[in-house]
């Protein structure tokens, strides 16, 4: 049978960001999907090696505007891991509070866009209207609506006032009511049930095989949340106090992904409230002290999944290597498992259901002779073996790799 190819992108009204999809169709059914990225690569890792340790949080914040606390959060955790310093409790609580506020606004943003994709523009308008209150609270807490710049090596960058915390409490109260209203609307509406249930199923096996993280894997029954599995800052204490819990469901379809996000929003609201009520007094930052050689890792549960940062230092005032791994990087390939066999009308929703964030993802691109190409596994192995052999030659060691030739 003749195959139809449907290209979407790079500038398309459906997409906020530039990316390029190729759908291979048989009639209305999707057979295969191909994602071409590279429109968003700005060279963050290289730029980070040219900035001082304290300037890098401002740069990594601009990796992504929606999860703009997650990247600096993971970065400062990595540097603190390397230096072995412990921030004071108030600094930890402020960082966690901002991280959770970000999760609330990011999940509401996704809910609105998902409503927009299935044609419920009312959901879009309402979700974004209730999101505004959270953004107001963020502005009062940090001074900006989106790029908060609250993370710093050794604690929080600035203190929060009691007035701002009181305002945040009020915003959380109104937001809890509206989120519960959304939960009722999603759970009761027969049209949403028909439209979302059983669509784009990602099985538990596939979620593990593709290394999916965050709200892409938890609806498939994979219990993996960095805040619970490897607690840091205020998350361990709040979990012990029973302030919040991890949401896991079993079905793995788009409906479950929506339900998990709405329930997580509620849990984040409870956690924010707990953090404000138990906010300790005292210092909110320590001076990091002398920089020494070493390497460190940090990870944070971003709204989209686990974000991972690695830094290495040679004792100077700049990192000599900085590596970023964003959640969408591992969530993107799940399209291969969830898209084929679905109707083309559902694909927009399935691709949106992982809440893709391409500006986080784009780390590797190869441009040679004006042509953009991507490397296959074999090419990478070949390159790697060649490099090892070259180093062996330079060092005068007898090679054991000849069999790869």
């Amino acid at each position, binding site marked *: 049978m003749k195959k139809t190819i449907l290209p979407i992108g790079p*500038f398309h*009204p459906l997409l906020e960001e530039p990316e390029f999809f190729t759908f291979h169709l048989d009639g209305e059914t999707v057979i295969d999907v191909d994602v071409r990225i590279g429109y*968003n690569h*700005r060279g963050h890792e*290289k730029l980070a090696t040219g900035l001082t340790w304290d300037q890098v949080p401002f740069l990594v914040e*601009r990796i992504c505007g929606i999860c703009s606390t997650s990247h600096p959060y993971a970065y400062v955790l990595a540097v603190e891991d390397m230096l072995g310093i412990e921030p004071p409790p108030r600094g930890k609580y402020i960082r966690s509070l901002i991280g959770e506020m970000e999760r609330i606004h990011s999940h509401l943003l996704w809910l609105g866009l998902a409503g927009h994709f299935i044609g419920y523009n009312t959901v879009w308008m309402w979700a974004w209207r209730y999101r505004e209150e959270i953004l107001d609270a963020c502005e009062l807490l940090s001074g900006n*609506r*989106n*790029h908060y710049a609250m993370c710093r090596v050794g604690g929080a960058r600035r203190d929060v006032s009691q007035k701002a915390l009181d305002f945040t409490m009020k915003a959380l109260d109104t937001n809890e009511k509206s989120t519960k209203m959304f939960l009722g609307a999603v759970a009761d509406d027969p049209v949403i049930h028909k439209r979302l249930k059983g669509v784009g199923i990602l099985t538990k096996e596939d979620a593990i095989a593709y290394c999916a993280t965050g709200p892409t894997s938890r609806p498939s029954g994979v219990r993996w949340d960095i805040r619970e599995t490897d607690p840091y800052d205020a998350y361990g204490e709040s979990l012990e106090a029973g302030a919040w819990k991890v949401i896991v469901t079993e079905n793995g379809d788009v409906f479950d992904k929506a339900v998990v996000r709405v329930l997580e929003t509620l849990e984040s609201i409870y956690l924010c409230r707990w953090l404000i009520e138990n906010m300790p007094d005292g210092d909110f930052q320590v001076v990091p002290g002398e920089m020494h050689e070493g390497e460190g890792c940090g990870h944070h549960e971003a709204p989209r999944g686990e974000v991972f940062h690695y830094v290495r230092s040679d004792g100077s005032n700049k990192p000599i290597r900085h590596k970023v791994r964003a959640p969408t990087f591992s969530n993107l390939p799940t399209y291969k498992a969830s898209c084929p066999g679905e109707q083309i009308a559902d694909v927009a929703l399935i691709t949106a259901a992982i809440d893709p964030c391409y*500006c986080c993802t784009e780390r590797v691109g190869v441009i040679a002779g004006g042509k953009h190409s991507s490397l296959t596994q074999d090419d990478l192995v070949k390159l790697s073996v060649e490099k090892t052999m070259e180093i062996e030659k330079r060092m005068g060691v007898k090679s054991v790799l000849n069999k790869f030739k």
Partner: protein
Amino acid sequence: MGLKTAALKKSIWVFHVACSPCNNCDIEILDLLTPRFDVERFGIVLVGSPRHADALLITGVANTHVTPRLIETYRATAKPCVCFLFGACASHGNFFRGSYNVPRRIDEIIREEDPNAIIVYIPGCPPKPEAMIAGVVKALSVL
């Protein structure tokens, strides 16, 4: 003021071109369409094709991969059109000025394509929605 410019100012239809943004200006632009700011009351509508657009809302820096697509989008837009460069990245490159993958500023690219292009800069990282509306109003009042 020519007839075309007078007609352009009435109710501008916009096309959103996200070059290589961090998404932040983009979500603030979408925010403008939602109830608190609601720019549709001024007749500003987001359209699906550059052929229908009076203005391009450009965010982010232009990397090597996206530059030819940006030029193509500008060519496809009906002239006269206004290019709004939202945010620090689009205006002057922000952190990414020295990056290996960001060869030129967006205004340089557009000026090379069309020396008479109307370019409006709205700085800020990200500009607040109020600043975006103020920028658009200011630009339309001097046209």
